[in-house]
């Protein structure tokens, strides 16, 4: 159904972020880890600012602070110096190193430099582990950076050995509330779960008396090492397929069964997730979730007329877009445009897979889009709402329609990290938010202004 997308040379108001940012976020979900950018100072400062505006949490990202001289002669010495300084100052358990455009271009071989560094420092006490990921921003988005970091972590750290009973869960980039929810779900199914990463505490922490150099929480290193021995991996993301993901690597290297499923947004996709958990645990869906599903269905029924036939534009990270599209489809809202700055080449196919049996007509699906292009298409599509992160606000404002905030970044509201997207509970929140936004819009626009529906 995809028509020819507009094809501009320049990018205006991008609908994507750069790769190292995704890697830093993934590293933040590992216990005792400090993200480290091998590059110049600016990138790290910008990314910190960007991430902070969403989470309202401190985030330290160290940097090699390369200057012109290093750019010419190579950044190796600065990388080593920087690692020593971070190790001394933060006492981290792990330093997650992501390259930047600069160091990828000058050709610094981080893996080799790290090997040298390990040799140089042999016998030292208290040095952390190191993981490195290649993240040139000129190919891919923050999501490639995120998945790439997860893949590198398991590739470089997961060990083999006798098979255990654990389940690896690789949810991709979701909110802190989502990570918390997933842990609860796994525990309620009685499954021993290793979730990577885990941003539930590290990026949504408590008020503190003592500043923690490295916040508590995150996936324990011991668990990451054990991932190669787990019984199975569950990986969210219909657009991932055979790319270099954590699940694929664990399957390839350690022969851990990999189940790739869609991000569980809405009833259909959550049913698939819970179905899988039933199979893996041999248990029925816990009462709590059966009840929640029941309430959700009841709410869908109560609210169906307010949302039916409405048209939505969905944009953002590809797998979240797929999930949101599936959810909208099942409540009777028609996604008319699904757009992402990502370029997996699988977005349209994934949306078809997830919505094919509900939607009479597939939406326009475009990858590699920016907000200028989305805006241009929006004019003729006449949507009733848009669903995505904060950067779509100018579009919502121009069209005078509600923006339903999901994903990252949420820069114009508080609590972005506490938006629950996943499972029956997440769908309940999304449904109420969307339905109320549409009701409010109608109420505000109405001359009568009823105070009941």
């Amino acid at each position: 159904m995809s028509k020819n997308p507009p094809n501009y040379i320049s990018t205006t108001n991008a609908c994507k972020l750069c790769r190292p940012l995704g890697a830093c976020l993934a590293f933040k979900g590992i216990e005792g880890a400090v993200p480290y950018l091998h590059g110049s100072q600016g990138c790290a400062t910008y990314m910190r600012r960007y991430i902070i505006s969403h989470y309202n949490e401190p985030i330290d990202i160290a940097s090699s602070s390369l200057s012109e001289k290093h750019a010419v002669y190579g950044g190796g010495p600065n990388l080593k110096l920087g690692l020593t300084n971070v190790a001394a100052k933060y006492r981290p358990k792990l330093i997650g190193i992501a390259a930047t455009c600069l160091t990828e271009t000058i050709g610094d071989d981080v893996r080799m430099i790290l090997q040298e560094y390990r040799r140089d420092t042999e016998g030292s006490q208290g040095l952390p582990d190191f993981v490195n990921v290649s993240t040139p921003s000129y190919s891919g988005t923050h999501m490639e950076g995120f998945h790439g970091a997860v893949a590198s972590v398991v590739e470089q750290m997961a060990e083999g050995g006798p098979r255990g009973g654990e389940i690896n869960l690789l949810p991709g980039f979701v909110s802190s509330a989502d990570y918390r929810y997933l842990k609860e779900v796994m525990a309620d199914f009685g499954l021993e779960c290793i979730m990577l990463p885990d941003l539930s505490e590290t990026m949504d922490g408590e008020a503190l008396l003592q500043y923690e150099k490295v916040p508590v929480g995150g996936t324990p290193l011991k668990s990451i090492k054990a991932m190669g021995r787990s019984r199975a991996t569950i990986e969210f993301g219909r657009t991932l397929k055979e790319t270099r993901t954590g699940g694929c690597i664990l399957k390839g290297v350690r022969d851990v069964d990999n189940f790739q499923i869609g991000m569980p947004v809405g009833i259909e996709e959550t049913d698939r997730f819970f179905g899988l958990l039933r199979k893996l645990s041999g248990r029925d869906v816990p009462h709590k979730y059966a009840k929640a599903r029941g309430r959700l269905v009841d709410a869908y029924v109560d609210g169906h007329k307010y949302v039916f036939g409405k048209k939505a534009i969905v944009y953002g990270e590809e797998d979240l877009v797929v999930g949101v599209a599936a959810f909208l489809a099942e409540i009777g809202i028609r996604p008319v445009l699904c757009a992402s700055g990502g370029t997996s080449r699988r977005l349209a196919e994934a949306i078809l897979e997830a919505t094919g049996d509900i939607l009479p007509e597939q939406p326009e699906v475009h990858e590699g889009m920016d907000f200028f292009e989305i805006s241009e298409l929006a004019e003729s599509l006449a949507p009733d709402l848009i669903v995505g992160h904060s950067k779509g606000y100018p579009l919502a404002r121009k069209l005078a329609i509600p923006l339903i905030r999901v994903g990252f970044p949420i820069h114009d509201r508080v609590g972005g990290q506490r938006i629950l997207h996943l499972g029956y509970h997440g769908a309940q929140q999304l449904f109420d938010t969307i339905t109320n936004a549409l009701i409010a819009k109608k109420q505000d626009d109405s001359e009568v202004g009823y105070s009941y529906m």
Partner: protein
Amino acid sequence: MEAVALKDRENQIHIKGEAPFEIVCDKDSLAGAVSQRACVFCGSRVVLYPIADALHLVHGPIGCAVYTWDIRGALSSGPELHRLSFSTDLQEMDVIFGGEKKLYNALTELIDRHSPRAAFVYSTCIVGIIGDDLEAICRRVEAEKGIPVIPVKSEGFKGNKRAGYKAACDAMFRLIGTGDTSGISPYSINILGDFNLAGEIWMIRDYYQRMGVEVVANITGDGRVDDIRRAHGASLNVVQCSGSTMELADMMEKKYGIPSLRVSYFGIEDMSEALYDIARFFKDEKMLERTRKLVQGEAQKLILELEPYRKTLAGKKAAIYVGGSFKAFSLVKAFRLIDMQVVLVGSQTGTVEDYKELEAITDPGTVIVDDSNPLELTSFLKEKEVDVFVGGVKERPIAYKLGIGFCDHNHERKEALAGFDGMLNFAREVYSSVMSPVWRFVPRHSSKDLGNKV
């Protein structure tokens, strides 16, 4: 004190009254330290960004452009082209084969689409490495499109933010001198170094108008290309804080003989001084009289309005960590005006002289830091039992995490803090943080013991 400073950094921290004064600054950030410092590109972008009818194209990979999209509160009274984020979004092939063609095509496309009055093309780190000839492409497009197309040499790794200010000044200097200056009053100025955050420059312009001074160009808050082109017709450059545009004033003085005046619009004292200085410069009795009336009227009104805030806030402790040290001076004085005590002050880009001056105006025991990082800052905040911390967006979560009040004073703020009204807003901001009842729940002030009230 807890030893928290990295060894190499110890001489970038100074505690007043402890040792003879010496502080090392203008040093490249140390590898591995989490610095609050930004890059050259950031400095250039900050200064040029508010020019609202220019096209700002970032030549590089997507990150540098997307992280600077509409992040600042610089308002425009007309066009808002500056609020869009344009990038060449370099891809792997461009990096391998060079990005010049893409840059040319992108520039042409965007100029055709938006008809800007000028275009600024920012180079980023990667462009410095692949060696695209920005100068040549810009010249070509300029000839073809008939508007100024100016390269900004802002490769991030070529220094710190201050180098970026310089690159921005160089870029603007190419515009200045190309416009018609006829009809400009002898009582005329350019406003340099105000970025019209939350509409500040409008308040300032209003003061100047009441004094009878013509403003030729805003550099750069609510800025317009054509105004900047004729900025050399003004009699005086009034340069506010931050030092970001001092460079430009110096260049203009050299080439066009325009003197400059360094001012701050922040706090009653500095604001009044600024207006008087300008009136004195023009040596016009009537103007001086008008200024006196203006200042007295505004100051009287303000003192009255400030009084309730002063009463409650007196004795509370403040910490300051901001971009430019000139801003730090003003903040120190502003806190004094409401009887608050400044226990820490620092900046990202101060010079040795700046720090000497800071040391002169602060109380003994005040900690003075250059280019600090989160760990260092927090240990000081805790030790000094700070009530409110003034800083940028990156410092806010640290303060909040430890249950310390916070006031935004950076380029992203949405409250006007300049001018007489700004001082009142500032007091309100500080008040609304310090006096909030929520602090009673933070661990600093209460036990975590749930149910201890039963």
